[in-house]
Every structure is written in C-alpha cells, then in structure tokens.
C-alpha cells in the first residue's frame, strides 16, 4: 500500500525540474543540501581511500629505522607518499567532509523546513556557497596534480613556507581559503534565516535543538573562519612578497601562525561537533518518543560551547614555548568546556528514561555516539591537563582522541542523520536489516581501529610516523584490521543508501514519529516545502502531537493543525478544494 503522504507519484522537489543544469543552478535549499551531501560523500570516499592507504602503510613496521640492514634510500619515495596521504586525508576530511557535512548538507536540507519556511533567507548566496565549495574542492584535487601537499593539514610554517612543493601549498591554502568563505556565507545565511523566518508560534525556546546547534555553529563559522582566511593569506603574502610574518629569517615567528591557525581551528572542532550534537538531540528524542530532557540546558550548552571554544586555542601549544601563564589559563578554560558537553550527554541519557525506545538504524547510531562521544570527550580531559599533555601531545593518543570526536561522533551523527532524513529526502525507507548490520560493522570497526591507538599513544608512539618501533606493532596491526571493518561497513552503508533511493519501500510523511515541522509535509516535500502556508509550530518535542496510523505506515498529527495542508488525505484535499500550488498529478 502506498501511503498517501508520499509524494513520489506527484510533483515534488526532485522532479519539478529536470536536467543537470536545473540542479547545478538551483536555488532550492533541498537540492543544494542533496548536492552537498553527495559532494561530501564523494570527498569522504577520497579521504577514506587515503585513510586506508595510511593503515596499509602502518600495518607492520617497515623497520627502516630500527634495522640497519634496510636501505633508507629504498624507503624515501614511500615516505613521501605516506606524508602526502596523511596530509590529504586530514585536509579533505576536515575541510571538505566534516565541516560541511552536517551544517551544509543536512542543515541546508532540513533547516528551512524545521523553521516552517520556504527556503533560506538568501537563496542566491546559498547557491554561491555551494559553488565556492565546489571550487575549493577543485583546488584540493589540483594539489595532487601539481605534486602533492605534504605539510599536514595544519600548514605549519616554516615547513610549509620552505616546502619544495610550492604550487601544492598555494593550491591547498587557496582551497582552504575558498572553503572558508563557503562556510562563512552558509553560516550567515542560517543566522539570518533562524532570526527572521521562524514559523508562527515558534519562539526561540520552541525551536528544535538541531536549530540551536546549527545557530551556535553558524556564529562560530562567521566569527572564526575569517581568521583562517587571514592567516592563510598572510602565509601566501610571506611566501610571495617575503614580508616577515612567520619565518624567523625574515623577522617572523612560527608560533604566531600556530596562534592564528588554532584561533580558527579550535572553534572549527566545535563547528564539526555542535551540529552532530544537534542531530543527536533530534534522534534521541524521536526514537525515545519523549520530550527531550532539559531542553533549555541543551540549547544553552550549545551557546556556552560556542563562546568558550573561542578562548581555548592555546591548548594546542602547551609545548611550543608559550608562557606558563598562558598555558595555565588555556588549560583551565579547556576544562570549562567539558561541563556543557557533559550536560548534553547526561540530558540525552535522561531523555531515554521511561521512554519508548526504538532500535531503528538512526537510533543505533545515536546510542553508539553516547559511547563514542563519551570516550572522545573524556580523553580530551587528559590532554587538557598540562602535565599529562606533555607526554601525550603529538602522540597517537591525540589521534585516537580526535577521531573519536570527529568520526565517532560527527561522522556517525552524519550517517545517523542521513538515515533519519533519507525518507524525507527521497521518499523511500532505508533497509533496516542492512542498516543495523552495517552499523554493527562500523561500530566494531571503529572501536577496533582507534582504541588500540590510545595505548600506542601512552606508550609513546608519535603521530605522523611512517615507521615505528616494533614495540608498537600489535596496536598498529589491530588498528589496521579495524580499518578494514570500517571500509566494508561504509561501502555497505553507501550501497544501502543507493538501494533505498532506487527501490526502497515508499515512505510516509512521518515514518519515525518526529514532531518537528519537516515531518508535517509530504515525503519528499514539494518545491516550496509546504503546500500551503507554513504550519503553526507547537512544542517540537511534544510527542502527543503525533499518533501512529496504520494506513500511513507512519505518524500523523493527532489533531489537524491550523492550516493543516491535508497531506495525509490527498483525495479529500482535492475534493475540499485545497489549493495545491505546485501539486498537479
């Protein structure tokens, strides 16, 4: 039976215009969101390819250092390849996958609908952001063609300024510079949209928590991103005009670059994790069929994280020679950011209390994030502690820590969010069987990959090492095995998503029981999201507002809302003479 709230057989945003140009030149936030999503997936595959390359290199020690019989000269080209692999892996994953992942892809698709709006405030700016993103991605791809970037994603001078691969460094920094503007414009768009385009009845404290998270993220994007633009520009100015900024021979200071770089890149860590926390809040609430616990605490903690994240950057430089006083202040403030993060986790767990817990695939990702973000967040405490950081800084402990946060939390939230909103995007339901199986593969693989790296780190294995002491062999071996699991899990996840789009079961408007406004329109939505005026927004977490209805194979509003677009009874709405602007079978 076809749920009547499924719009695949009518005009919807996917089929209202045809041809690749209608996609490339679209102003529709949903189409832009989908294009971001596939762009991010493509880049994720690219970054993942290099991740696998790293793990293959590191599976066994090459013993070049430790065994005098091995000729160093035989290893040199492999070392260059390895250094390029980890640089591209880091740069692509950070700038092209995780930063745009949730805010630009899911955010673009969902945000206006959650607000009950037709689009973002500045649709043309939104399209421009996407085109900048494409351009930035192109720059990164160009770096391979002109020799390959080997500076690490951090571009630290004096290595980057003295690098032989000048063109690669120029294209790499140019790419990051352009992507920065894409990020700034998206943030600006979202802030204005959230301020000005909320549905009637949607006060600030009736906004879904995903929007609070995106809002906090957008503020970070607007305020922090210009600084990376400036510092990368200074890097280029120094390289071309020989004005002393970062290199000592010209009178500069390399540590100055680190300050500028981390002034952006630390808030950027929260640009990556805050939206993931927003997705978490939606998933936990929907799949527990309970109002989110501590709504205001979660909303305010997002803002607190955004504010505090601006004043912790110095914890990346405890060992650069910055003064003890500065390190002390940064250490203290870094501990402070743990509180709002912990508040979120405690509230998510409390939300499940006396709920009705579903184990649909998105919820499995959400549940595993409680573990993964817990580990990732708590291991941050070791690194904020100045004395312990002396030993752990720049070791695999750090590598494992930020992968738990950025992959274990942000990427898992992205996948969970994609599964959650996939019915809305394509009007079809993902396969639960494959979804749960691949989740298990990803979860086991992830832990197998990164838990051993913590111990390699405490034992003293430095990061960005092509080769290592055989004492670290077993950790690296299991880590590489785990990476194989993730590879299979991610490929199957991709096939599941593609399979869903091609031949998934038709989805109703609201398959999961969400109360936020994007579930109050057809799956997939029409070009302008809502067929009539924007619906009146109630409490986004009052689950009594929706009831399960068998004919729809999903949830329907308990009582017709004001201006209910009658999406659940299409024939009746035609008879009732409801004007369907873009809706002709």
């Amino acid at each position, binding site marked *: 039976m076809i749920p009547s709230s499924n719009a695949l057989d009518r005009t919807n945003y996917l089929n209202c215009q045809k041809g690749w140009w209608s996609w490339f030149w679209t102003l529709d936030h949903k189409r832009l969101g989908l294009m971001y999503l596939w762009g991010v997936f493509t880049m994720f595959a690219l970054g993942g390819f290099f991740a696998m390359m790293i793990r293959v290199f590191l599976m066994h020690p090459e013993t070049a250092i430790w065994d005098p019989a091995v000729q160093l000269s035989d290893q040199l080209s492999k070392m260059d390849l390895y250094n390029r692999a980890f640089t591209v892996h880091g740069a692509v994953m950070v700038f092209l996958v995780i930063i745009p992942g949730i805010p630009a892809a899911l955010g673009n698709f969902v945000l206006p609908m959650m607000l009950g709006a037709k689009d973002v405030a500045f649709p043309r700016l939104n399209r421009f952001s996407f085109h900048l993103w494409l351009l930035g991605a192109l720059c990164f791809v160009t770096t391979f063609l002109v020799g390959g970037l080997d500076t690490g994603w951090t571009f630290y001078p004096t290595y980057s300024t003295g690098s032989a691969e000048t063109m690669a460094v120029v294209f790499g920094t140019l790419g990051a510079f352009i992507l920065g503007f894409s990020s700034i414009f998206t943030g600006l768009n979202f802030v204005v949209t959230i301020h000005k385009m909320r549905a009637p009845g949607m006060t600030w404290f009736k906004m879904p928590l995903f929007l609070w998270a995106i809002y906090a993220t957008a503020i970070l994007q607007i305020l922090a991103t210009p600084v990376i633009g400036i510092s990368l520009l200074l890097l280029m100015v120094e390289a071309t005009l020989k004005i002393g900024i970062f290199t000592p021979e010209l009178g500069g200071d390399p540590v100055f670059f680190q300050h500028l770089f981390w002034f952006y890149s630390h808030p950027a860590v929260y640009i990556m994790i805050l939206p993931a926390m927003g997705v978490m809040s939606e998933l936990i609430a929907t799949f527990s069929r309970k109002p989110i616990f501590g709504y205001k605490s979660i909303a305010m903690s997002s803002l607190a994280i955004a504010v505090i994240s601006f004043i912790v950057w110095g914890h990346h430089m405890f060992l650069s020679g910055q003064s003890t006083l500065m390190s002390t202040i940064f250490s203290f403030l870094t501990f402070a950011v743990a509180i709002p993060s912990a508040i979120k986790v405690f509230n998510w767990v*409390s939300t499940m209390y006396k*709920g009705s817990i579903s184990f649909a695939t998105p919820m499995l990702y959400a549940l595993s994030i409680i573990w993964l973000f817990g580990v990732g967040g708590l291991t941050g405490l070791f690194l904020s502690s100045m004395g312990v950081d002396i030993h752990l800084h720049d070791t695999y402990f750090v590598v494992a820590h930020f992968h738990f946060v950025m992959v274990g939390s942000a990427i898992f939230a992205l996948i969970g969010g994609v599964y959650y909103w996939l019915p809305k995007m394509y009007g079809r339901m993902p396969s639960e069987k494959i979804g749960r199986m691949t989740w298990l593969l990803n979860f086991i693989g992830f832990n197998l990959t990164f838990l051993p790296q913590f111990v390699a780190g405490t034992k003293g294995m430095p990061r960005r090492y092509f080769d290592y002491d055989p004492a670290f062999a077993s950790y690296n071996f299991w880590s590489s095995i785990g990476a194989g699991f993730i590879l299979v899990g991610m490929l199957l996840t991709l096939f599941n998503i593609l399979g869903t789009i091609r031949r998934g079961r038709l989805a109703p408007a609201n398959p999961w029981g969400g109360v936020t406004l994007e579930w109050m329109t057809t799956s997939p939505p029409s070009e302008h999201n809502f067929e009539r005026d924007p619906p009146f927004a109630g409490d986004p977490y009052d689950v009594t507002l929706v009831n399960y209805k068998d004919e729809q194979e999903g949830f329907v509003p308990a009582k017709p809302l004001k201006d209910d677009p009658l999406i659940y009874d299409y024939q009746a709405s035609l008879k009732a003479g409801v004007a369907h602007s873009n809706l002709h079978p």
Partner: protein
Amino acid sequence: MTPLLAALFQQHISPPYDPLGMFPPAASHNAGYSDWVFYFIFWICLVVMALVCIATLWFAFRYRRSKVGLMPQESPHHSTTLEIVWSVIPSFFLVAMFWYGFKDYEDRRNIPEDAYEVQVYGQKWNWTFTYPNGYVTDELHVPVRENVCLRIEVLDVLHSVFIPAFRVKMDGVPGRYNWLWFHAIQDGTFPMYCAEYCGQQHSQMDARVIVHPSREDFDKWLAKESDWSTLAPEVAGMKTFRVAGCVACHDLETGSNLTGPTLKGKWGTQSQLADGSSVTFDENYLRESILTPNARLAAGFAPNLMPSNFAQTLTDQKINWLIALIKSKGNAQ
C-alpha cells in the same frame, strides 16, 4: 596515598604508578607523578563512563518499544536539581584534574639552578648534542640522579624533543630557544623521538638516550670521549678550533676574512700589522696572538674584537693542536 603525598610535596622522586601497564618505564623523577595524574583522571572517567553506559543500556532494554508500546508513560522532562548536580559535581573533579596537571607542568617549566645543560640541535633529520666542554655526540648521554637541562635549538623547521621514558617533550622552534629538564632515576638506554612533523624522514629522526649509572661514570665517559690526545694533532686542533669558538670569526677554508682574518694559507708568510710593520706568521706569533690578541694586531682589524681570556681557557696542549691545525692549512703557495 603515596603518589598523592608525592604530588603535594613535589620535587621528590615519585614512585612508579602504572597498574594497567599503559606507559613506558618511568625513568625520571616525575614520570610516576605524571602517570599518577593520568590515572587519577582515568579512574574518574571510567566511573563516569560506566554510569553513563549502564544507564543507557538499562534504559534501552527496560523501555524498549516492543515492551512499553508506542506511548510512554508520563515522566518529567526537566529537573533543575539534576542539571545543577551534574554541572557542579563534575566541576570539582575538573578543578582537581587541572590543578594536578598544572603542578606537574609548572615543575617541568622551572629549571633547577644546578641543572647540567646539554645543547640539543635539531635539523632535518637528526639530532646532535653538545656538552659543556664542547664535545658533540649524536646520542644523548646523561648521568643518573642529576638534574639535566636540554637547550633546544633548530634552524630549519619545527621539531620536538620527545623522550617517552622521561615523560618530557618540547618543541624546537626556529628563531628561539626552548628548554626542558629532567632528572633520570634509572640507568639504561631509552628512545628519543621527534614529535613534531618535519617532512620526509620525520619518523627516522630518532636518537638514543643513554643514562649512565652514576655521575662519576658519566664524567669518565665524557672525559675519555672528549680526550683528543690520541688523535692526530691537526684533527684535535680542528675540534679545539670549533669548541673554543675560533670558527665563528676565522675562516680556514676559503681564504676570506670574516670578523677576524682568515687563517688559510698564512703559515710562514709575512703578515702585515696594524702599525705598518710586518711579522713572520710562525709558532711564536700565533701563540702570542691567541694569548694577547692586541699585542700585534693584523692590519685592517680593530683591537678588542677577540676574546682575551684564552690564557685561562686554553691549555698549552690545545694551543699546540691549534698551531698544528693552522700549519696544516699551508702557506700562500
């Protein structure tokens, strides 16, 4: 409670504390303390993580949809008390973690007055170590139970000195000196790594740290290794030339004048002096110029540029080595 007491009174050798075997040997006075701070945080996190995970799994099991149905029973969705409890209580633990970490860091930033200083010079992709007597090695030798301070200098790109067994690490930054210090409590050989990415052979930029079982043993090693009496005189002369600092102002290879005159090809020639006369460049003139540089200045050079304390710092033997060196650099023909 011993580690805690040690923490409070610092500066003394902390006993090793590594119940889960996660660390390399604790070979410095503060390694035990540093590990103890790690475990202090670790145990707290373990408890928090266990509580969160047990609650999550229990709620997921107890309130599974197949059991409770679609409509859950009414339950509170806000509690100011809970929010305060789970914000305030962790704060105390966080402050404690901060404080212990701070104590540890501060201890390692305040270099003891009596520390034995070794200069570390890093460049792509090797380390060299210079001892106070000017002797240079590519492995770090230190005495046990002595405060040792490393002065880190790099010229090309960022590097970082990392000795896991001592729990110490410090970046080398072009354009500035950085310091670290430690107090080894165990003799033996330990690895040292470069921890800041520095390009192609970053992972090959390692060195061995050799801790001598006593100061006497270390002194004996250093004296023996830096004793050049068995070397050919001009080789020993070259070492002296570097260590005494002559190399900074005098050229031996190209024949060009630096701050001081070149010494290449001078032997046996007539040297022009500042007062207009000339002198044969021989043993006597050279010795005089080393010990009392202003006595007969070379033409074109100002007085008082050259240190005048070599009478105190150079032995007769070293001067003889220097003479042998400069003699070996030949004359104008």
